[in-house]
């Protein structure tokens, strides 16, 4: 067999995702037929998941620079300045990932590993992880695949609580949406955040000191097995069927918790002794990727001995030991002279081998001045390649072709506010998310100020003794996505910004996860480009601090979200925005407070109801003109809302999104105290769908008449929409809806559909 045939055979036999051209490129690099380990290593490094080979040229459009950015995209997580306290600068560390395919195949394990993986990215920058968010997209739970969708939803929620609650990282919300475009391919996007002292940021490469002194590579954590072998490749192809369960990893929050405590101890020890080190989590590509990347990014070579790797299954082939994605492991590059002390902390002080069979820390490699990546196993050399090729990556320029959706407005738009509001409150998208939230621990660590649902964004006060609060929200609307992929990106940023601003916090950073179908298809690649352009446009407008844009500091691209039967998912750019409020005690929730106060509408209503909850739920229509993104106006409105909060004028703030002004009003009433129920009476009762249901971006603010009168030169985007009442109703001079009638249904709706399966249509 000639080389080309051997490569073809290897690709087929090993189920590699790489093309023949890529395999030939690899063979050229090593000057022979690559070893199995080399094939799998490069298959992972060149996978879409790791290399961003299709997306990289487009991602350049995103604004990633701002004076607050400490670490932009490129490392495991992004870092921005947060606040100064007690003589130290504190930075915010954020990461955003998807775990879509694994969650579709094995929902519990897939979702759990999603959290397990994303928190490692934040931990390995030296941070304490103080929160996570889940952005979930499921199929239609009442549709033709409803039974399967409901089971996946239950499994994903179970995976999230079983992992996150045990790990002790508070859940800070996120969102859950249902759309039949996800029937065959759910989305599980996860965001993790934490804080690190600026002088204690850790990097994921062997430090420059390793050129002067012998450094070794310590592997710590769970013993290696065969789970997750080929995981990155699995995430980078169409989901053909569900037989690929072996590529899903198995997560262990208990071990992670102990490991995190031990890691903090080790990092403190190294910092206190002023020893330079490198630290990186094991994710895609396992040992092979972590060892080669730690070395390559530090311009060194490394020799790894697989015989030293603790394994829980005997006789694994070298490529499996090297590339399996066994969870709960880290790689640490330290000087040889302190290796024994580091091992002692993990193995004796924290007793890892006693707590979990086979777990612990071991030296498995030695950094070398010769820039080669060498791996030994059973006395044989199983890989030997120049390190520079490993991280070099590849780029493709994909073709794209516009395929805009036609704008089709409904023939008629009947409007019956009482009935429509009821329908929307009881729809799967309008129902309360509390059946999901009550599975999650949102309060562990004792820093949570606003839990999910209490305000537009969750707020935590993460630095003990410091009043600076972190506000965070994640958003993305598939109903906009299917109608206009550019606006889906822009509004994902816009809504997340509005949610953070509504609490009184100023946005300081964004992350994104770009979920699309097959990028090799020109129409899908166009959707992707549009989404990135939309995000970029919105971020350029919505940097509210000085002249800088809102920087995108971390993110992820997830392609191939489609099944062999179905088409691509709706374009799904999902954005998380992080904000800071200097005094958290000034933050605003959504609950109505004082009867007689005014309800101020920020943002005039426009006739742009395409993709709205009203169209979908009340008149069964899925087309139409999507709300425009008016960047300058969004910015002015946001600055106004922030001013109101800072001055203490706003008593409650809620952004207007799904269901328009009327649903926002109802949610503010439902959030009021059970022993002091409040409602709203609108000034107008005329049944105009544009007024009540349009999802034109905006806010509702509760403020006193006195505060309203004190606003000089009122901007034209302000108007009085109504007043707070001491009745639990949403009313107008013409009609009145009693919220008590639907309160329990609204709260239980998802529980009854998803968990109890009592409602099936």
């Amino acid at each position: 067999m000639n080389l080309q045939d051997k490569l073809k055979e290897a690709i087929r036999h090993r189920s590699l995702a790489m093309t023949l051209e890529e395999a030939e490129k690899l063979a050229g690099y090593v000057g022979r037929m690559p070893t199995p380990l080399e094939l799998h290593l490069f298959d992972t490094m060149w996978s879409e998941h790791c290399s961003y080979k299709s997306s990289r040229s487009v991602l350049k459009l995103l604004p990633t620079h701002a004076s607050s950015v400490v670490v932009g995209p490129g490392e495991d997580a992004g870092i921005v300045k947060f606040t100064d306290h007690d003589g130290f600068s504190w930075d915010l560390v954020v990461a955003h990932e998807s775990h879509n395919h694994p969650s579709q195949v094995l929902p519990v394990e897939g979702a759990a590993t999603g959290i397990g993986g994303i928190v490692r990215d934040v931990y390995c920058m030296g941070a304490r992880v103080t929160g996570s968010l889940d952005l979930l997209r499921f199929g239609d739970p009442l549709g033709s695949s409803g039974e399967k969708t409901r089971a996946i939803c239950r499994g994903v929620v179970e995976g999230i609580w079983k992992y996150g609650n045990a790990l002790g990282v508070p859940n800070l919300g996120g969102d859950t949406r249902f759309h039949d475009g996800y029937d065959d391919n759910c989305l599980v996007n996860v965001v993790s955040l934490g804080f690190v002292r600026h002088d204690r940021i850790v990097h994921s490469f062997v430090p420059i000191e390793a050129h002067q002194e012998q450094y070794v590579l310590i592997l710590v954590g769970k013993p290696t097995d065969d789970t997750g072998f080929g995981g990155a490749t699995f995430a980078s192809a169409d989901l053909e069927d569900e037989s690929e369960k072996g590529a899903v990893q198995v997560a262990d929050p208990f071990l992670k918790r102990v490991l995190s405590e031990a890691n903090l101890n080790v990092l403190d020890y190294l910092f206190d002794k002023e020893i330079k080190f490198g630290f990186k989590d094991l994710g895609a590509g396992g040992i092979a990727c972590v060892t080669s990347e730690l070395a390559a990014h530090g311009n060194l070579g490394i020799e790894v001995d697989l015989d030293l790797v603790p394994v829980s299954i005997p006789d694994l082939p070298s490529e499996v030991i090297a590339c399996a994605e066994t969870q709960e492991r880290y790689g640490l590059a330290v000087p040889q002279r302190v290796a024994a002390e580091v091992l002692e902390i993990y193995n004796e002080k924290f007793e890892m081998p006693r707590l979990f069979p086979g777990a612990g820390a071991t030296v498995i490699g030695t950094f070398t001045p010769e820039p080669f990546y060498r791996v030994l196993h059973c006395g044989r050399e199983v890989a030997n390649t120049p390190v520079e090729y490993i991280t070099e990556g590849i780029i493709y320029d994909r073709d794209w072709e516009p395929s805009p959706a036609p704008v089709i407005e409904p023939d008629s738009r009947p409007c019956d506010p009482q009935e429509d509001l009821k329908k929307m409150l009881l729809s799967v998208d309008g129902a309360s998310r509390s059946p999901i939230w009550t599975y999650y621990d949102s309060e562990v660590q004792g820093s949570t100020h606003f839990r999910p649902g209490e305000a537009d964004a969750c707020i935590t006060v993460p630095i003990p003794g410091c009043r600076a609060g972190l506000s965070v929200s994640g958003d993305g609307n598939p109903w906009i996505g299917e109608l206009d992929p550019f606006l889906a990106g822009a509004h994902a940023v816009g809504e997340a910004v509005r949610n953070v601003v509504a609490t009184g916090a100023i946005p300081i950073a964004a992350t994104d996860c770009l979920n699309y179908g097959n990028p090799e298809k020109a129409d899908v690649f166009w959707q992707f480009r549009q989404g990135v352009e939309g995000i970029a446009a919105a971020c350029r407008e919505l940097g509210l601090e000085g002249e800088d844009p809102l920087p995108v500091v971390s993110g992820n691209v997830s392609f191939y979200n489609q099944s062999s039967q179905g088409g691509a998912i709706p374009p799904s750019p999902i954005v998380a925005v992080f904000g800071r409020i200097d005094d958290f005690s000034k933050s605003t929730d959504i609950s109505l407070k004082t009867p007689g106060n005014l309800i101020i509408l920020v943002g005039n209503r426009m006739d742009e109801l395409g993709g709205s909850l009203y169209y979908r739920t009340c008149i069964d229509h899925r087309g139409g003109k999507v709300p425009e993104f008016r960047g300058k106006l969004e910015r002015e409105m946001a600055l106004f809302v922030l001013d109101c909060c800072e001055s203490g004028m706003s008593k409650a703030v809620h952004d207007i999104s799904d269901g328009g002004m009327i649903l926002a009003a109802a949610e503010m009433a439902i959030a009021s105290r059970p022993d002091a129920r409040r409602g709203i009476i609108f000034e107008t009762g005329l049944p105009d769908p544009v007024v009540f249901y349009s999802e034109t971006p905006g806010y509702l603010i509760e403020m006193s008449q006195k505060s309203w009168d004190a606003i000089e030169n009122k901007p034209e985007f302000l108007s009085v929409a109504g007043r707070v009442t001491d009745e639990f109703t949403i009313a107008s001079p013409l009609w009145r809806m009693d919220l008590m009638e639907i309160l329990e249904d609204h709260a239980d709706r998802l529980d009854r559909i998803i968990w109890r399966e009592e409602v099936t249509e």
Partner: protein
Amino acid sequence: MKSVPLVAVIQFPGSNCEYETARVIRDSGMNDRIYRWNQWRELKDSRPDAYVLPGGFSFQDRIRAGAVAAKERIMDMVFSEAADGKPVLGICNGAQILVESGMVPGWERGRIESALAANHISGRSGYLSRWIFLRASDRAQQICPWLGLAGNRVIPLPIAHAEGRFVFSEENHARAESSAALKYCDDKGIESSDYPVNPNGSFLNLAAVMNDRGNVLAMMPHPERAYWLWQLPPWIPGEWGDKRGQLLGSGSYAAAEGPGSLFFKSLADFFRGEH
């Protein structure tokens, strides 16, 4: 006793509430120190005045929640100190450990007389996080060093657990009432066995159980998550909601104490000899 009392927080592998628990002890005017599970020598040498077993998932909830931690060597020390009358508090997983070690209700030395079973809620299983309301029993108000300040007040606290239902064997049902320390009630203080007032089906609506002497308290809700007023949800009704509403927007809101502070301030008072 030391001039400033020292309260030990025991960290087991899998604990995850140790830092915030230590923080509220410190804020209550006492000294705090976290002892890792294998630091039993250090614990013995420093002779703390009180012990707290924090929440989490010690030893991965292997066998049953709390069962493995209860057998750790460091618990021998806690056990003998409790027998000498030192205050011991177990929160959530810490409560599970106290039950599994037989320290509560503690009628017969070394016997496990109660259990924390899986939540029993119609149509729902697994974890439940929500805010509930509690009241201290008359006896607990008198004898428990953690409840001296509780009085008859309705106390809102969050729960976050999958196994929080106190159960007793049938021959002990009559006796269980004497061990009642905290019971679930509604926001007006009225007890009910219906969900969600009783959020897990606990026997006698028990949220916390104590030993006969009252110095050992095993509670499922988390007082350290309601230590400050700002930790309370905006919708909390009643006395604490009113207090929150009054202070909101004022300079004193951020430092105001919440209902969870009663437990730790009670202990500090106890050491000052005020109860």
